[in-house]
């Protein structure tokens, strides 16, 4: 996304390219809220391609809700990859970020949980191995040998780590097992790649695929999940360990938890198809940690 990346800082609404993709995989962007009086430093919240319906409506609603609920100006910072967002979070450029379970586990010591989204009543989701709808029976990953395979992000749990670990259990590496792999830096892009036939299979966030099948059934009906992982901790909202006890994070956490009780918050949750946010124990991500260990052990 050259265009998005060149647009380093977008001061306010209106300069946004009005496409879903522009927002989804768009590079860095800040959404300011001039209406809020700046009493203190704005709260900087980083977002990643986890978002599906990340159009202007969602970003505006989220930004407006958080600013009002926290009583503080909130800047939404969009990054293309998990890596970018994680490193900015670790370096203190961001106050908090919506990251993936994989970076959270990888940087467990440096990061603390703020909240975990609740989807269909649970703070968990699955990873899917996606194939074309017209493809014959695929019962295990072994049937995907020799495919062109689409991953979403090298730091994504569902879009990379799960498949990597699955191969590791079979003593294989993606570059040997698949004929060719590529990253799309977006779960929706994985669905698109498989639907178009660019890739014969893909690793995708189950939550994204399920929500897409409601929002864009004409796209998802060209694909089918061939394999589903067990339930794992949903991509969490995290902050750096040093910042975890701050007043800003406390207010931010409160705002997230209270989201279902506010009309704006409910509309944000509606757009995200989420039930709400909850505080969870980091042990929710143990299964992801086991996969990281497995992959590391294999080298």
């Amino acid at each position, binding site marked *: *996304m*050259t265009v998005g990346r060149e647009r380093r800082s977008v001061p306010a609404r209106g300069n946004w390219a009005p496409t879903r*993709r522009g927002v989804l995989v768009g590079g860095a962007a800040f959404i300011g809220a001039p209406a809020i009086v700046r009493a203190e430093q704005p709260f900087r919240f980083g977002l990643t391609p986890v978002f599906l319906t990340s159009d202007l409506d969602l970003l505006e609603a989220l930004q407006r809700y958080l600013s009002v609920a926290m009583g503080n100006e909130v800047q939404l910072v969009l990054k293309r990859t998990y890596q970018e967002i994680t490193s900015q979070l670790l370096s203190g450029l961001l106050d908090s970020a919506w990251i993936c379970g994989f970076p959270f586990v990888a940087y467990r010591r440096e990061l603390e949980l703020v909240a975990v989204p609740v989807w269909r009543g649970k703070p968990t989701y699955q990873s899917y191995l996606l194939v074309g709808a017209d493809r014959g029976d695929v019962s295990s990953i072994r049937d995907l040998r020799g495919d*062109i395979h*689409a991953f979403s992000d090298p730091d994504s749990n569902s879009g990379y780590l799960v498949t990597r670990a699955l191969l590791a259990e079979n003593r294989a590496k993606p570059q040997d097992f698949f*004929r*060719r792999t*590529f*990253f*799309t*830096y977006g779960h929706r*892009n994985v669905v698109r*790649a498989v639907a*178009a*036939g*660019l*890739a014969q299979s893909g690793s995708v966030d189950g939550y994204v695929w399920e929500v897409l099948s409601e929002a864009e059934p004409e796209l998802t009906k060209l694909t089918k999940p061939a394999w589903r992982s067990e339930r794992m901790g949903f991509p969490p909202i995290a902050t750096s360990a040093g910042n975890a006890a701050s007043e800003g994070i406390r207010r931010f956490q409160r705002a997230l938890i209270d989201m279902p009780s506010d009309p704006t918050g409910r509309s944000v949750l509606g757009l995200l198809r989420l039930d709400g946010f909850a505080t969870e124990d980091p042990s929710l991500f143990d299964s992801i940690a086991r996969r990281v260990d497995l992959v590391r052990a294999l080298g």
Partner: protein
Amino acid sequence: MKRASLDPRRWPLAFKAPALVAAFMLIVSIVMTNAVLSRLRETQERQLAAMSMIYLNGLASALIPHVLREDIWEIFDTIERGANLEGGFGRASVVVVDSKGETLAASDPRKAPVLSQQSDRDRHFEGDAVLTVDSDKARAFARKPLIYQERRIGEIYADYDIRHLLRERGEVLRTLIATNTGIALLLAAFGYWIIRRMLGPLATLSRHLDLSVSGPVQPIPQDQITASTREFRRLFVRFNAMADAVNEREAIAKELANEERLASLGRLASGMAHEINNPLGGLFNAIDTLKRHGDKPSVRSTSLNLIERGLKGIRDVVRSTLTAYRADRGPSRLAAADLDDIRLLVGPELVRHALSLDWRNMLEGELPTDASALRQVVLNLLLNAIQASPDGGQLIFLATVDAENLLLEVHDEGPGFNAETEAVLTGESQKPAPVGEGSGLGLWVTRRLLQDLRGRAIVGVSHLGGALVQVRVPLAPVEELRDVA
């Protein structure tokens, strides 16, 4: 035109000229259509090439960084977004390959999967060409090398759907055909009208010529001559001059025919005088004998018998002559006796040539036809037969009636007709009256009489060895008889 002919040289001018105009228009429109279509094709291909270049240049600059990184997804995504910007041509299908010709991404990955070999796409192009058009498949093929730091790192192949361009050509072709057909038909109709107008004087001429077949040639009225163009005016003046000449000749021919009738009458009269003269000698002898020996009853009786027979002979001759030329009966009825008179008339001629005539007159009652004209016909034919027959020969005359016709036959033992005289009699020759000794003026008169009677004569060979003339005259009342010879 009697019948449509396949030979164009025989087609009427009023059809030929418009057809020529239409054919000329056809040639012009074929040439024009070709020129317009080839020009349109050139323009379309030039535009296609220009748009293709703009499109591929834009695509190439967006793709080069992704191709360098072999970023399959970003290449695909860029192509997809580019496909929405095509606008100018139908849906393009794009394939991006690396320097080895292996597919990095394609707009339709199912047709060109990632890593599939695409080097055979170059077969669409000749030499360094970057665009080729395949009208049969309604596709255009374009290619664009991806050059980075003067190195070829890959290639874009685009495949455009150009059905809309071909459709446009088809529409132009249809419009041209419709317009040119319309113009050709209009010009042909106009040409037909013009030619008909120009040929109007010829129709006048033709009408007057047609009239001349059944009667005297009618000159073209002066107002029509002045109304026509200069060329036709000269033609009409000459036609009128010819009409005058023909009419004059016709008058002379009538005069001739009259004279011929008188001449034949003269011949008959001399024959008759001879016929009367023969018994006259005997009669005077008888009177002489009566004067001298009239007191003897036997002599008186014999002489009176002789005188009576002689006078009877003379009376018959005179009666027949009178009946032949009497005008006391309506001309529209013919009785058997009218023909029998002819037998008496030609009797002296027969005797003179020692000919025998087998007379078979089968007519009964009166027939609705012109008696005097028909008697003249029979007389002429018999005189002709007598003239042709060798002395001592035989003649046969036969008159019968079938359903609607009076049939006459005259047989002789003569040498038969030559072609010229036969043509004069049967009317196959439109030649005017022959002039000269024994030239067949009598036959010509006969033909004219038959023509008035709407009858026909046929010449054949008689079982007697000579000529046979058969005459067929329809038995319908003759309305108006011309002043026959």
